[in-house]
């Protein structure tokens, strides 16, 4: 195993051992959501609205129920009433009530003895609709005369007299904004738009659920957070959370989209109605794209003031975001908070609104809100740098935030690493590569807060001295490896001696999902504390064996050792020797830690991309791509690099191709991967990475989260590169070939 040169103070941290899930995944042994089969299991199919907005007049399931083998049909009438707030949103989104709010909204579900039979039965369920006017585009939805998606959905923040689809307003800022613009030599203002994109996880949502009439049940499900799924399903179904035991399957991607429920309550409700028989429900790709959460679409105004030597003096952003038909689904607050977070600007003002539209309920997607905000702000910043003849990287460095600077969203930054990131970017050889005709280079910075959250971890010493860690955060990005490395480092044992299991809801206290780039940070922090607790107990056992005070025992290199006046008096007692004896000298040895993890450290990144644009077709090819990001500490650098590359690739897709295309009737036109074009390996060069390490003082090994920041800079970096390659600035995404070609032609005509 090669030891990474950056982390020489550690024995294991910074190395790249084999992945604990690698063999299972490459041999097909890993069990995903759809892989569970139970005796007597039924299969479910869902009836979805073909209309973007329609009143449900009548549902007639008699023909479906008459089929031999059909065991249950559920509609909203099978769910409890009286829910409020987000619980109501979840229930309404899982199964429409009086009104279908978007194309693909579930209106009924059926369980039968085979999947084909369930699908046939679903086609026999007759739903009468009264089609209502709909609205799709965020700017259309905000117009005072737009079709009203839902009345009474706005929260306390919305002033009276606002357009009916505005449901939330956010504003914050500091400094004298007018004086800031007055101090600038150049002030520019533009409007930017981004389309909704889907997380694009390869594994569709899938579960096997069982629920009895007594309110007790189990679920095997592909999720980022088994406790969240449990709580949400319990609320939607009106059962006790502890009545439901949820086991997470292996997960084929989530990126935020598997932190909430979509079809899971339907499987549970069908099971309950079918006498407690287990029900498997697997979404098709089309169902995933039509009815699970994409991110929001956005329309954004940005105004920046800059001196002629590149110092930002003032910034004003005004964002409008739609996240479907439900309050709180759009990340407008996060987008505003991230928009200017990379820069030290004396005066900033942020305003934003959330708007309802007849589209699926948005879910979190990797640094929610930050990529759209970065597209707007970093595009305008780049444009102004070129107008003033300034180097875009130098300008970013000149304005970069650092420890002690007041963040655009309020607080003063603790230890952060943007300056180190930009300096490492500047030193990278990719910036020396010569550009040819129709080629351009784009640079952008990005930011994400990262998150701590509720976390519970247990750790048990085996009779042979190996160690089992029980963690509650599904492994979506390598957390089993990073947890094993941190525990092995702490205990002074080998990486291979630690097995990390992702456990079901009955095994630990509540864990938040693997979201917010928190698994290696928060679960890692708790695992280290659990290991330290076990070390304390192992030292006590050794002290008893030796007949000395426990304070006179230290832990070193995987063994208890007598210290102080007893040093050398007894040979070290290894973890294996302690494990072998523990049954007879006090019983099992374990460690446990639970926390709402604090001390999270933000992560900054910078990307540099070289593109070539075909002037005949408008197609953009990525020639070179560099990701530089502060990891705090890279526990397993290969996984960190993978996160950087994955974020960049998803951002490339968002920038170049991905978008939801709706017809005039409000139906999604591209609900398959053939038409919803995510990048594939043959579209891309190897993504170069540089791991910067500015350790986070809030974590025992310095970890910051690394999962999300990487999706933030690609949108503007690519837009900036395309602008350089073509001379045409495009202020809306995606930069699809027709749009780029039109911009090139328009420039030629101009």
């Amino acid at each position: 195993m090669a030891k990474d040169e950056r982390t020489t103070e550690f024995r294991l941290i910074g190395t790249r051992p084999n992945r604990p899930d690698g063999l299972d995944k490459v041999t097909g042994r890993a069990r995903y959501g759809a892989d569970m089969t139970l005796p007597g299991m039924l299969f479910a199919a869902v009836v979805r609205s073909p209309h973007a907005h329609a009143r449900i007049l009548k549902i007639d399931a008699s023909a479906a129920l008459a089929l031999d083998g059909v065991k249950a049909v559920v509609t909203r009438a099978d769910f409890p009433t009286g829910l409020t707030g987000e619980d109501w949103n979840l229930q309404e989104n899982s199964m429409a009530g009086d009104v279908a709010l978007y194309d693909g909204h579930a209106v009924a579900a059926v369980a039968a003895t085979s999947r084909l039979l369930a699908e046939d039965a679903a086609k026999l369920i007759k739903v009468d609709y009264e089609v209502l006017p709909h609205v799709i585009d965020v700017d259309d939805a905000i117009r005072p005369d737009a079709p009203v998606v839902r009345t009474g959905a706005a929260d306390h923040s919305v002033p009276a007299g606002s357009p009916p689809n505005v449901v939330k307003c956010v504003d914050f800022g500091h400094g004298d904004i007018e004086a800031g613009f007055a101090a600038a030599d150049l002030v520019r203002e533009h409007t930017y738009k981004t389309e909704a994109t889907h997380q694009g996880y390869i594994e569709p949502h899938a579960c096997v659920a069982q629920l009895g009439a007594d309110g007790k049940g189990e679920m095997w499900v592909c999720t980022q957070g088994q406790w969240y799924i449990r709580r949400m399903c319990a609320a939607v179904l009106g059962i006790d959370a502890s009545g439901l035991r949820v086991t997470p399957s292996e997960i084929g991607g989530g990126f935020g989209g598997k932190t909430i429920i979509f079809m899971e309550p339907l499987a549970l409700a069908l099971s309950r109605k079918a006498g407690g028989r287990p029900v498997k429900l697997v979404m098709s790709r089309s169902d995933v794209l039509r009815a699970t959460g994409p991110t929001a679409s956005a329309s954004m105004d940005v105004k920046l003031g800059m001196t002629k030597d590149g110092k930002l003096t003032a910034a004003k952003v005004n964002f409008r975001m739609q996240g479907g038909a439900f309050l709180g689904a759009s990340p407008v607050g996060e987008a505003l908070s991230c928009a200017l977070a990379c820069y030290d600007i004396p005066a900033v003002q942020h305003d934003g609104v959330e708007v309802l539209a007849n589209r699926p309920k948005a879910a979190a997607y990797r640094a929610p809100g930050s990529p759209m905000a970065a597209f707007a702000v970093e595009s305008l910043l780049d444009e102004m740098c070129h107008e003033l003849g300034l180097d875009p990287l130098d300008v970013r460095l000149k304005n970069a935030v650092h420890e002690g600077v007041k963040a655009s969203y309020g607080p003063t930054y603790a230890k952060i690493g943007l300056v180190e990131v930009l300096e490492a970017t500047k030193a990278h050889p990719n910036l020396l590569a010569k550009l040819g005709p129709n080629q351009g280079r784009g640079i952008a910075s990005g930011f994400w807060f990262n998150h701590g959250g509720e976390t519970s971890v247990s750790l048990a010493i085996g009779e042979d001295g190996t160690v089992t860690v029980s963690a509650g955060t599904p492994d979506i990005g390598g957390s089993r490896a990073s947890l094993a490395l941190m525990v092995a480092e702490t205990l002074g044992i080998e990486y291979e001696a630690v097995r990390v299991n992702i456990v079901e809801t009955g095994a630990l206290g509540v864990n938040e999902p693997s979201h917010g780039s928190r698994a290696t940070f928060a679960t890692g922090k708790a695992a280290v504390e659990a290991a330290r607790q076990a070390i304390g107990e192992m030292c006590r056992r050794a002290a008893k064996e030796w007949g000395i005070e426990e304070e006179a025992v230290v832990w070193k290199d995987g063994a208890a050792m007598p210290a102080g006046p007893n040093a050398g008096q007894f040979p070290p007692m290894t973890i294996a020797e302690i494990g072998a004896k523990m049954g007879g000298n006090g019983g099992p040895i374990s460690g446990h830690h639970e926390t709402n993890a604090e001390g999270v450290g933000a992560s900054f990144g910078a990307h540099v991309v070289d593109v070539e644009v075909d002037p005949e077709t408008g197609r953009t090819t990525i020639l070179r791509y560099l990701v530089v990001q502060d990891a705090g500490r890279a526990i397993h650098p290969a996984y960190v690099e993978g996160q950087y590359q994955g974020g960049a690739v998803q951002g490339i897709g968002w920038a170049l191709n991905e978008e939801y295309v709706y017809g005039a009737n409000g139906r999604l036109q591209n609900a398959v991967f053939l038409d919803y074009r995510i990048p594939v390996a043959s579209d891309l060069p190897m993504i170069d990475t540089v791991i910067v390490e500015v350790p986070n003082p809030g974590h025992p090994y310095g970890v910051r989260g690394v999962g999300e920041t990487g999706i933030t800079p690609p949108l503007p970096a690519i837009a900036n590169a395309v602008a350089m390659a073509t001379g045409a600035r495009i202020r809306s995404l995606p930069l699809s070939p027709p749009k780029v070609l039109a911009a090139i032609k328009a420039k030629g005509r101009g």
Partner: protein
Amino acid sequence: MVKVHLWSGLRRFTDGVELVQVQADTVGQMLDGLVAAHPGLGPVIAAGVSVSIDGVLTASRFGAVSEANEIYLIQRIKGG
């Protein structure tokens, strides 16, 4: 007394004041004090806010606060 910076959208609940002072030794007391002094903040805080103390987000109601701390209420952030 601790001084709490609110985002400007909350000023409507605090008679236009953006920097609010409350008597508190812990984060929990601070949040309760804010609601007691300005009941309109109740639904906002109940819905979830993040608390930044000296630039570090804190989640515990038992965390200590003093007048020497820089305290901000900010939009609740989780992630994807």
